């Protein structure tokens, strides 16, 4: 589904990604782990097409297409979804209105009929249950005045409605208490399926207790230095990132 | 033209005598500056209420009187004990005392200084080392800035001069103490302060305007503050003049890159006072804070006009001004924030809050934003109101008398500004002055009150 080869990217003239390689297939859950500043969020943003992140080398092929050539909205319509670490507030625009506009753009792109208000609302009601979100939240402006947990839930709720093929969760666990974490992870697990892939970007492995990955990659200084199964996350928890660092350092010496 | 002539008052009259008296000691460049200033004043006159900047302040009372310039001062028999009560008991400070606008070496306290630092009388420095002053004088405040700075420049003679060289921090505050004796008949003084803080230097300057006894006088000070990169200046101005006094003053600062300027202006006295505070952020990343408090009782008039001019990117400004108006007093606040086209990422916040303690008091406030850049965060807010009835009632229900309750709440309103003041001696002084002033405020509002 997704093939990243030798991806290099810089922000503000500073190289952050220094040649990332990885492949994600449908049905898989990949965890990207790494300490602060290792380039995890940069990778997520580059895949989503954020301005200001300049790709300086390598390629990303998504469903046979050159992903890097597509405008952010086209990537979204092709099924790439980024759950933001810091979802932005849009005052005055209601969550429902926003989501309906988004869903219909994506449906149009896929050659599906746009949903009318009634069908949309019944879809939304059904999806609300997945993340246990308060219906009131729908009528409030997008993320405005939401608590940190509400914002994160809202991201997963949007993911449930938009049904992306590739979902990238950028530090979705940060700032959440254990109950919220459990709910959100539960929501994500309900969305796992054989035709979809999920990339979980996280600093800590605690989210991975709840969303069990098929593969774990360690990102250090802009490169994936170690990959493995779910047991790698546990090993990291036990030994810390220094351990990988030392190991990698030893290899390169 | 006839109208303009009327609007110069009697101010042109004493000029020639002043110029002659100052001539022997003044460099020609300064004499020329004084002459340009008086010419400018003669041609444009003083503003009237038709000028937007003077819409709410009528300066006719100043123009209708004759104020004599104080050409020389013999100290008027003022003794050290007369000025001691105005020095906040801060013996470690560098205190320059000016009697009716003239520096008094005997009454001043000067401590040893770091090499290259100058703290002294402007007049003495003009006489002895004009070259130290010349590169800075009238640069931040050119003589044609407005009518009152032109007047100040025409009669420019004495004031405080503070020069802090690169990388020097002066620990003790510098106090410029202006004492009106009240004994010289209607007179005018035009203090000129020049504060130069070079790169990475730091200094605190306090200006205070006080009187020994009540009397009619017109004080027209101008303070220029020039700040180099990374310099830090804390500036306090306290105006507590005679109830018959008129005060029209300006403070102009210009900041270099990453410099930090804090200004706190507290205006408590005078029949009419006007403060023009103009802060120019002329270096990337500069920060300024303009805070202030004004109070007025009786028929007093107080006017504060501030301008914060964001010329360069990434600068931030903060401003909080509060007004407390009692009796039939009239307050004016005009806070202008300008963000120039290149000043992206400017961050400006301004608040003006006013308390009307008497049904006859008035306030005109105009917080003004002029934004020419798009990537900015600017907010301003203004409120006018009286003391909250619920708070008053709550206190009274706990047995506190109405007058006391009002005083406590009013003082709390003022304390936000007082708390910004860092040097303890000033804060303690203001606390007691405000306490006394506020205690009697709002009495007319209490049924059966005084």
């Amino acid at each position, binding site marked *: 589904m997704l093939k990243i080869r030798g991806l290099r990217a810089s922000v503000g003239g500073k190289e952050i990604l220094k040649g990332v390689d990885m492949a994600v297939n449908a049905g898989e859950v990949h965890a990207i782990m790494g300490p602060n500043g290792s380039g995890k969020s940069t990778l997520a943003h580059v895949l989503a097409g954020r301005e200001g992140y300049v790709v300086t080398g390598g390629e990303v092929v998504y469903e046979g297409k050159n992903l890097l050539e597509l405008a952010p909205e086209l990537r979204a319509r092709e099924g790439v979804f980024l759950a933001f670490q810091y*979802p932005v507030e*849009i005052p005055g*625009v209601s969550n429902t209105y926003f989501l309906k506009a988004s869903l219909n753009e994506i449906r149009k792109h896929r050659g599906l009929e746009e949903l009318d208000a009634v069908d949309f609302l019944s879809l939304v009601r059904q999806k609300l249950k997945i993340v246990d979100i308060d219906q009131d939240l729908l009528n409030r402006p997008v993320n405005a005045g939401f608590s940190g947990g509400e914002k994160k839930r809202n991201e997963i709720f949007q993911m449930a409605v938009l049904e992306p093929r590739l979902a990238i969760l950028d530090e979705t666990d940060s700032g959440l208490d254990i109950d919220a974490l459990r709910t959100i992870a539960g929501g994500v697990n309900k969305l796992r399926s054989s035709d979809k892939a999920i990339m979980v970007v996280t600093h800590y492995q605690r989210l991975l207790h709840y969303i069990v990955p098929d593969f774990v990659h360690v990102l250090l200084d802009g490169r994936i230095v170690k990959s493995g199964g779910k047991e790698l996350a546990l090993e990291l928890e036990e030994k810390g990132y220094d351990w990988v660092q030392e190991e990698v350092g030893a290899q390169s010496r | 033209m006839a109208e303009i002539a009327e609007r110069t008052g009697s101010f042109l009259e004493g000029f020639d005598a002043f110029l002659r008296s100052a001539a022997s000691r003044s460099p020609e460049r300064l004499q020329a500056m004084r002459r340009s200033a008086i010419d400018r004043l003669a041609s444009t006159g003083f503003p009237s209420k038709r000028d937007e900047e003077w819409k709410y302040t009528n300066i006719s009372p100043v123009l209708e009187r004759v104020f004599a310039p104080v050409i020389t001062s013999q100290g008027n028999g003022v003794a050290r004990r007369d000025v001691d009560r105005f020095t906040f008991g801060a013996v470690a400070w560098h205190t320059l005392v000016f009697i009716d606008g003239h520096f008094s070496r005997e009454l001043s306290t000067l401590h040893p200084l770091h090499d290259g630092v100058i703290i002294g009388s402007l007049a003495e420095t003009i006489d002895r080392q004009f070259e130290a002053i010349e590169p800075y004088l009238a640069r931040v405040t050119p003589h044609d800035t407005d009518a009152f700075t032109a007047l100040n420049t025409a009669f420019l003679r004495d004031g405080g001069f503070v020069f802090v060289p690169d990388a020097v921090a002066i620990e003790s505050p510098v106090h410029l103490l202006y004492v009106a004796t009240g004994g010289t008949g209607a007179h005018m003084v035009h203090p000129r302060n020049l504060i130069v803080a070079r790169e990475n230097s730091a200094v605190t300057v306090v200006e205070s305007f006080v009187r020994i006894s009540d009397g009619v006088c017109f004080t027209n000070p101008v303070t220029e503050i020039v700040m180099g990169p990374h310099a830090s200046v804390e500036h306090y101005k306290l105006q507590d003049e005679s109830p018959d006094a008129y005060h029209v003053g300006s403070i102009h600062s210009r900041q270099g890159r990453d410099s930090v300027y804090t200004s706190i202006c507290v205006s408590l006295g005078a029949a009419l006072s006007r403060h023009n505070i103009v802060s120019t952020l002329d270096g990337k990343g500069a920060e300024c804070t303009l805070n202030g408090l004004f109070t007025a009782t009786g028929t007093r008039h107080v006017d504060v006009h501030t301008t914060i001019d964001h010329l360069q990117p990434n600068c931030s400004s903060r401003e909080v001004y509060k007004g407390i108006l009692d009796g039939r007093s009239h307050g004016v606040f005009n806070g202008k924030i300008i963000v120039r086209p290149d000043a992206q990422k400017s961050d400006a916040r301004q608040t003006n809050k006013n308390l009307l303690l008497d049904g006859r008091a008035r306030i005109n406030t105009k917080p003004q934003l002029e934004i020419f850049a798009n990537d900015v965060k600017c907010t301003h807010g203004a409120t006018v109101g009286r003391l909250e009835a619920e708070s008053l009632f709550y206190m009274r229900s706990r047995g506190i008398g109405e007058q006391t309750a009002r005083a406590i709440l009013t003082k709390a309103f003022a304390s936000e500004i007082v708390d910004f003041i860092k040097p303890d001696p000033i804060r303690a002084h203001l606390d007691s002055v405000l306490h006394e002033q506020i205690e009697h405020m709002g009495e007319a509002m209490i049924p059966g009150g005084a």
Partner: protein
Amino acid sequence: MSTETDRIEQIATQEYKYGFVTEVDTDVAPPGLNEDVIRMLSAKKNEPEFMLEWRLKAYRHWLTMVEPTWANVHYPAIDYQAIRYYAAPRMKPKGPDSLDEVDKEILRTYEKLGISLEEQKRLTGVAVDAVFDSVSVATTFKDKLAGLGIIFCSFSEAVQQHPELIKKYLGSVVPYSDNFFATLNSAVFSDGSFCYIPKGVRCPMELSTYFRINTADVGQFERTLIVAEEGSYVSYLEGCTAPIRDTNQLHAAVVELVALDDATIKYSTVQNWYPGDKEGRGGIYNFVTKRGKCVGARSKISWTQVETGSAITWKYPGCILQGDDSIGEFYSVAVVNNLQQADTGTKMIHIGKNTRSTIVSKGISAGRGQNSYRGLVKILKKASGARNYSQCDSLLIGDKCGAHTFPYLEVSNSSSQVEHEASTSKISDDQLFYCRQRGIKSEDAVNMIVNGYCKEVFKQLPMEFAVEAQKLLGVSLEGSVG
């Protein structure tokens, strides 16, 4: 500067879609202004003596006035002697009794504007008094309204049919000597709308005027007067468009509203005059005086305006809150793009006790547009318990535009409470990216964000107007994002 921001800057090239000229036989006065022109104008309209006198008084006063320069707008001097002060489509002397008698070309013009009178008449239930250049062409629904005692007709007709009402209320809110442009209007106004709601009547439909400037070099000087008697209610809509011309046209209208005890007047404007082209050529100078007087206790006047057009907008719809417990409201969206300039806001004059006012102003600046909010809140000595809340927000799109705020708060009563808040911000790259990541393209995202920003004002508009306002906003800003 990020490319996201560059993109925001680019959406500004939408052509003015209401620009077309209607070919009708027009009766025009020669350019220039003097007492003879005013007499001619008054005679053509067969006005009673008091009207002519009022006009002449205004004209003589106008000669002593100078054009104001305090507003934050810049334009070349206007030659008042080069303007034609009268233009009327030529038609049968007595004026049309029904739509069938109205020139077909004119009706077609309205159809292009999307306000077909017949459509309106049949479907929408909106009574339209259409002002075409200077003469009111047809007034619909008159009969139905007449049944309730409501008078809704052209100003000229009101002068003929209800001179006592005109005599009583004309100039009672905006006196002939009020300001340069209002005084000029008082001297030369050609037509406009008149509306009278009798005691206790709630007007069952939205009343609407569509203004349109057609003839070249014609200054449009219409005058609207609305009187709401005790306990009555009326909602009035005004929409404005003008064809494309490369010279500037002056529009100096006056609107006066009078609300007696317990009456409510809601006045909504969607102003879409030709804004000029991208280089700032042409466009309307919209110098308008609008004021309402809450004469009666508990009366309420509410202004809502959406200003997207005109090269220059200069207007301050205000309320004189004279009656105790009366309420004034001002909700405004003002958009400037390209080289448009707007200096707009409101005046709330609190005279009566416990009077309340609310001001919500949303300015949007794009291109090289300059947008100023100028507001006055004045609490007079006797206005005990008066309250005001003002909120003025500015949104900047692009880095060559400007947003300015000049709020004047003058408070002379200590029991009053005045609060003013203002903020300036831009559409952030983060917001745009968030929308795009959800599949929404930049233009739609900007529209969505801007509409969200204006929501507080739009919700004050009647439904069909709100929809139009949203569309207009999109059109005005198109090209400011790429």
